[in-house]
C-alpha cells in the first residue's frame, strides 16, 4: 500500500455555506436521540470546545434520520473548522461512548440556473483499506464555472 502524503484543501471563501453529511455512531447501543436531541448534542459539542461563542454558531440540521442516525448539517463557511473539530472531539452522549463520522463535505460556490448543462466529475483521491476518499465536482459546460465541489467518503468492498 502506497504511503502517500494526504492533503485536503478546503477553500472557505468561495461559498457561503458548507454542507456536511455526518453519522453518529453509538457502539454501546441504547436509546437513539430524536431530532431535537441531536441538535442539542451538536450544540453541546460546540460549547465544550469553543465556548459560548461556538455554541452560538448558526448550525442547521437540514435532515435527520433516527434509524440510521445520519444527518445533513449546514454551517456558514467561517464556522466549518470549529464545527468539524467539535464533532471530532465529542466522545460521550448521555454517558455512552459515541463518535461522529463525517461522510461527505459539499459546498456550492456558484448558483446554477435552469437550462445550463452540467458535467459531473468524481476522482478517487485516496484509497485506504476499504474507505475511499472521492473528490466530486460539477461544472457548467459553457462557462466553466464550478457549481458544486466536495469530498465524499465511501466504503468499497474488499476485492
Amino acid at each position, binding site marked *: 500500500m502506497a504511503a502517500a502524503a494526504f492533503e485536503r484543501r478546503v477553500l472557505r471563501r468561495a461559498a457561503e455555506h458548507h454542507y456536511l453529511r455526518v453519522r453518529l455512531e453509538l457502539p454501546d447501543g441504547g436509546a437513539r436521540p430524536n431530532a431535537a436531541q441531536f441538535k442539542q448534542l451538536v450544540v453541546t459539542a460546540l*460549547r*465544550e470546545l*469553543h*465556548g459560548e*461563542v461556538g455554541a452560538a454558531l448558526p448550525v442547521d440540521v437540514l435532515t435527520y434520520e433516527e434509524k440510521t442516525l445520519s444527518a445533513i448539517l449546514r454551517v456558514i463557511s467561517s464556522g466549518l473548522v470549529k464545527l468539524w473539530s467539535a464533532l471530532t472531539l465529542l466522545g460521550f452522549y448521555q454517558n455512552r461512548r459515541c463518535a461522529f463520522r463525517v461522510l461527505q463535505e459539499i459546498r456550492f460556490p456558484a448558483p446554477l440556473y435552469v437550462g445550463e448543462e452540467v458535467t459531473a466529475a468524481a476522482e478517487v483521491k485516496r484509497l485506504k483499506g476499504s474507505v475511499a476518499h472521492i473528490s466530486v465536482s460539477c461544472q457548467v459546460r459553457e462557462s466553466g464555472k464550478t457549481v458544486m465541489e466536495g469530498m465524499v467518503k465511501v466504503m468499497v468492498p474488499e476485492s
Partner: protein
Amino acid sequence: MVRFKNRYVLCEVVSEDPRCRQCIEDRALGLAVRDAIARVHGDYGLACCSISFTVKYLNAYTGTVLLRCRKDSYRLLCSALPFVRYLESRAQRYPCFLNTLHVGGTIRTCQKFLIQYNRTQLLRLLQNCTNEEERQCIQKSLLSCSLTEEQSQSGDEEEDDDTETD
C-alpha cells in the same frame, strides 16, 4: 527574526464595593480571567490563551492590571474580559468589571500610556471635585509628590496614589 511576540493588555478594575480593592490579588484575578475565557471560548480558547498568560503588574490602589498573552490569542483574551463579573477571594465574591485601557506590544509602551492616562485622570478628578476641601487636599498631594533618591534609581515611576475620592 524569530521570537515569541506577546501582547500586554492594560485594564482597570472598577468596583462599587470599597472592600474589593483590598482583595485584588494576582492569583484571584488570573483565575477569574481564565474562567471567563473558558466560558466564552471553551477548551480551545482556554488552551490558546493560557500559553503565556500571566498577570504581570497589579496595583490595588488604582486598580490597574497588566495582563500578558501571546500575540496570536490576544483577541480571544480581549473579547472575554467583559465577561469577568466578580472577583473571588477568601470565599467572598465582589462584583466588579474590567475596563480595557490599552493593548501594547511591550511593557514599556503600556507604562508610557499609563503615565499619560494617570495624568489626565488626575486632572479630571480635580475638575470633578465638589468639595473645596478635597480640592485643596488633591492639590497639596500633587505638589508634594516628588522623586526621592532611592525611588529614582529603581526606574519604575509613575504619578500615583491620588487620594481616593469615593
